[in-house]
């Protein structure tokens, strides 16, 4: 359970464009040494927001973070985001 570590990565990227760039440029390297589970690490690398949501990432951070680091079409993301997380309801996001 390393929800705190996932939230921390997302927040760092939101607060600092340089961090966001470093995250986008080489996510695996960016995440080195962080105390994440393999599922969390993979979800961050894939920007698999639905999995991060399911694991209890803070939804407020996840929302901003996903839009910030998304590499695909942002209009498509906006259209699909809600649909893709809806199956997971409201996971506990307390750390």
């Amino acid at each position, binding site marked *: 359970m390393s929800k*705190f570590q996932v*939230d*921390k990565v997302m*927040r760092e990227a*939101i*607060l600092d*464009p340089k961090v966001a760039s470093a995250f986008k440029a080489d996510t695996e390297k960016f995440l080195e040494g962080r105390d994440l589970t393999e599922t969390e690490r993979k979800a961050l690398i894939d920007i698999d927001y639905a999995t991060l*949501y399911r694991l209890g990432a*803070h*939804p*407020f*951070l*996840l*929302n*901003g973070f996903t839009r910030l680091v998304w590499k695909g079409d942002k209009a498509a993301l906006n259209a699909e985001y*809600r649909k893709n*997380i*809806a199956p997971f*309801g*409201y996971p*506990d*996001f*307390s*750390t």
Partner: protein
Amino acid sequence: MAELVEIMGISHSPNFPGQIAEPNPEPAIVEAAHDYELMRQRMAGTKPDVLVMIASDHLNQFFMDNMPAFLIGKAPRAEGPFPHEMRTFGIAPYRADVEVDVAKSMLQLAPKMGVDFSFSDEFRIDHAFTVPLNFIRPEMDLPIVPIFTNVMAPPVPPAQRFFEVGKAIRRIIDALPSNKRVGVLASGHLAIEIGGPKEGRSSSDPEFDRRMMNLVGRGDVENVIEEATWDRMMASGNVTPGFLNFVLLMGLADGKAPSVSGVRFPRSKGSVPYMAWDSQPGALP
């Protein structure tokens, strides 16, 4: 002894300034903007010397490595919001002096009143401070005492505690050694969801909004505390606990009903509430 001249609560929606600035705002936005202009006049009319501002940080300033439940800022200046908030929402900056002496006195008095504030000598204020301040005091000429509450990082204190802390802040203001005129401005919101399945363009739970504003309007503390549980607020929208800052105001007003309150329901984005307790001499509870 300081004099509490005004208690006021409004929304801190970072979307609202942009909604007002649109070429043809929808009627509910026009009405809400009018409400807020009346609130500005109301606060100005009470001629406060200092504004105690109660609002939340949105994981910008404070994080779960050291998350305060309640914190008093006492650096000499308060500035905000954060750069990424200006980029995202196009909202205006705000800058105010901090009334450091009052902040320090509040911090000194708090333990006697049973509240454990954290304190900060170095902070920024995010949109929860800057948006309401830009509405209520666009002149940026009034010193503030910022009080940060945790409504974002669970476990968030329950409504009962927000109410009690509000009551304690009232007693702290009453006991201040200065004879300043103190206004209180809190910001929060009603039902709202961000990054969850219910996120949409209007309130995520208008029924919650109507119910709570009805209870607030009647000064019905008991039912607000019973109904505004974490689970109920989450069911209404995952950022809804911002409502708790208004519960704190009910404590500050000692459970009395506000003299004015209301809420507008734009189709675009969440509802826009306001509430204020009478500032006539002797009329405050």
